[in-house]
């Protein structure tokens, strides 16, 4: 049995003003991947290709053992999809939506759906057009979760939510994680949301995957070193350092492959290591993107 729920190999898609370029992506079954990118980086295009809604120009996509887009009907039976730009029918009630979706998915869990209605404080008889943005996202999430999908694909679901609604949505996602067989792809430009629930992180920028690894590896390997240099000493290029900030005598080095031995190297140069700071996922993401853009510019 294939233990990858999602597999992209050399996937490209060309638009007049945007290219998704040679995407390789693997999402093991049971993992939660945070898919992070700035607006327009290619997250939604990648997800639409995954769902079979956009056809790739090149490369192969395999989702839950089904080649996409050819087998999208079979694959989508096991996928729950919620995107920021997805809307339900305004003139219909949540109850009608639940009945409609439950008639399609054989694994629909009515008891769980009703539990989510209470938990999200939704009203079955209320028309969708009368719901707030947060309630609409929760309703869409309910419809996706109660079908008990093997793969949950969430494209910026927390965008535009107030802090309370965001916490509730993320809380429910955390609860879903208890099911070890469920795989989740969670795209967002909000790194805090992704950091809370993901165990794998992928960064995308300008249509290319720039990095992909376990979250813990990212957090372990990235460090910010604050140094004090002696007078008239220039810092040579150090391996593994991808950014040098700060002022002349007080450089701040950013590394993506931190090793305690680096501290000895700095000290051998006469530098005093003032601090070794951990970096947040947001800082890691921003530095990664800037580093890639600078490298491309050179």
């Amino acid at each position, binding site marked *: 049995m294939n233990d990858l729920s999602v597999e992209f190999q050399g996937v490209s898609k060309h638009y007049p003003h945007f290219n998704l370029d040679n995407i390789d992506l693997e999402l093991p079954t049971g993992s939660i991947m945070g898919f992070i990118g700035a607006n327009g980086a290619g997250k939604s295009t990648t997800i*639409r290709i995954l*769902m079979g*809604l*956009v*056809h790739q120009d090149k490369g192969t996509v395999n989702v839950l053992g089904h080649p996409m887009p050819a087998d*999208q*009907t*079979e694959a*989508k*039976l096991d*996928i729950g*999809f919620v*995107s920021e*730009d*997805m*809307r*339900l*029918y*305004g*003139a*219909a009630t949540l109850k*009608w939506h639940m009945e*409609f*979706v439950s*008639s*399609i998915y054989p694994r629909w869990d009515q008891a769980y759906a009703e539990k989510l209605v209470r938990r999200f404080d939704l009203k079955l008889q209320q028309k969708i057009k009368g719901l707030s943005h947060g309630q609409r996202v929760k309703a*869409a999430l309910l419809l996706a979760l109660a079908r008990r999908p093997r793969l949950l694909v969430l494209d910026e679901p927390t965008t535009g939510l107030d802090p309370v609604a965001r916490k509730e949505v993320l809380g429910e996602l955390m609860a879903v994680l208890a099911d070890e067989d469920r795989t989740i792809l969670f795209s967002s430009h909000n790194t805090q949301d992704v950091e809370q629930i993901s165990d794998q992180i992928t960064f995308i920028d300008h249509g290319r995957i720039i990095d992909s690894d376990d979250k813990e590896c990212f957090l372990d390997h990235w460090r910010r070193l604050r140094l004090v240099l002696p007078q008239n000493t220039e810092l040579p290029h150090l391996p593994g350092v991808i950014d040098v900030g700060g002022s002349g005598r007080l450089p701040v080095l950013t590394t993506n492959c931190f090793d305690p031995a680096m501290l000895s190297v700095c000290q051998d140069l006469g530098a005093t290591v003032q601090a070794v700071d951990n970096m947040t996922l947001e800082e890691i993401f921003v530095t990664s993107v800037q580093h890639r853009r600078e490298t491309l510019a050179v």
Partner: protein
Amino acid sequence: MNYSMVTRLIAKDWYLQRWMILASLAGGAASLGIVCTGGKAAFMLGLILLVMVLIFVGAQLPMAMMVHERKEQTLSFVMSLPISHREYTTAKILGTLLIFLIPWLVLVLGSLALFAVPNGVALGLLPYTVIMAIEILVGVCLTIAVALVTESQGWAVAAVMAGNVGFNIVGYYVAHLPGIAQGMWGSSLMWSPTASTVVLTEFAVIVLLLCFTFFFQSRKRDFL
């Protein structure tokens, strides 16, 4: 083809458009009621109202069921369901046509019934009425095809206008065809080979429009 999914999508559209279906039936019944009051003026007024109701429904349905699906961003919800593009296209075409055919058939059959009423409408008008009723269907199929393929309100409105212009041109042209014009105002039915040719041509255009729709939809690579 997953027919059960196609049926569910059609049922969904029927539910969402139920008020329009009822309103069109009410409007159509009112038009027929006016015709039944008797007199040439009532007949003309009722007929014009009837055509207006059909054209309105024929324009509004593809807008509500296809263009608005994209505009109101419900398309991504529908396309996230286990359906293929072909099933979506089939459901939309069948759903729209079936909804339209309800008021269309009721109103057309109602109109035809007027020919059977003693001292009702002159039987000579029957071929012309049938041809123009089918022409409305051609216009609706044109709007469906354009709305589904382009998903653009602008193009769909242009298709509605083209359909209406076509309706008037065909109406004028057919009324002046010798095979139709000869017995048009007579009291007896005269179904000529010309009438059959026109009806067959109209059905051929409908089939072509629907085939083109499937062809262009199958070539689409981006559904969102």
